[in-house]
């Protein structure tokens, strides 16, 4: 699993490449998000464009991270969802609890009016 990170006006945008089907990938994602929380980066965008497979364990990992970031006072938002991943989110109802945007720019701007994390 590969991570590419960049900062956009205080928002950390993380692009991930690989699959989210359970350990070790889901553990690596959790470690990465936890390190951002510890650095105080609480406005996080995850770009899933290069995630080619996700199972319920991947959905569970996203939920865990979303909850951890929100508990720390921030939020985790998603971009780059393929139709396949959208279907999985629809079935698991993840679509109702996490904010999803069409692009990284839109997702980063969505944090604009929120207090700096």
């Amino acid at each position, binding site marked *: 699993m590969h991570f590419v990170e960049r900062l956009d006006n205080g928002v950390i945008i993380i692009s991930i490449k690989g699959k989210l089907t359970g350990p070790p990938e889901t553990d690596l994602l959790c470690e990465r998000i936890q390190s951002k929380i510890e650095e105080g980066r609480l406005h996080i965008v995850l770009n899933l464009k290069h995630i080619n497979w996700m199972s*319920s*364990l991947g959905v569970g990992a996203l939920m865990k991270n979303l909850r951890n970031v929100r508990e720390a006072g921030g939020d985790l938002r998603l971009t780059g969802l393929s139709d396949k991943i959208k279907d999985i989110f629809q079935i698991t109802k993840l679509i109702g609890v996490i904010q999803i945007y069409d692009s990284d720019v839109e997702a980063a701007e969505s944090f604009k009016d929120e207090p700096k994390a």
Partner: protein
Amino acid sequence: MKKTRKQKFKLKISSATENLEIIREFINNIATKAGFDEESVDQIELAVDEACTNAIKHAYKYSTKRMLDISVFLDTEKMEIVIIDKGGGFNPDKLPVPNLEKYMRAAKVGGLGIHLMRTLMDEVNFSINPGKKNQVSLVKYLDRKSA
């Protein structure tokens, strides 16, 4: 009455998450050959992935020394995938429908995989006999659209 010809495919593989990709490819090849459209092939693949993940995680507790038996039965009407493990079992009827909003407030989410399987496939049946033989059967019909 004309007898429907049935084809059988088998895969015996060690219980490891790294092998899920091999399992998915095995299933993908057969489902494609059977004539399912791309969306249905994806759905079958994901349902089988979830069933095997359940066995690896819950029945075998990630022990790679244990084996999974996967059989596929194909006829002109449907594809049936039977996954067998010999680990600890569970009662699938007692699993709650996953509630992600509740998860956001408190406890760990459970039953997501089985919910996915039941949504993606036309039929899902469990036969649980812990330590002896746990079996999940997943059926997809060629002329039906489910999820």
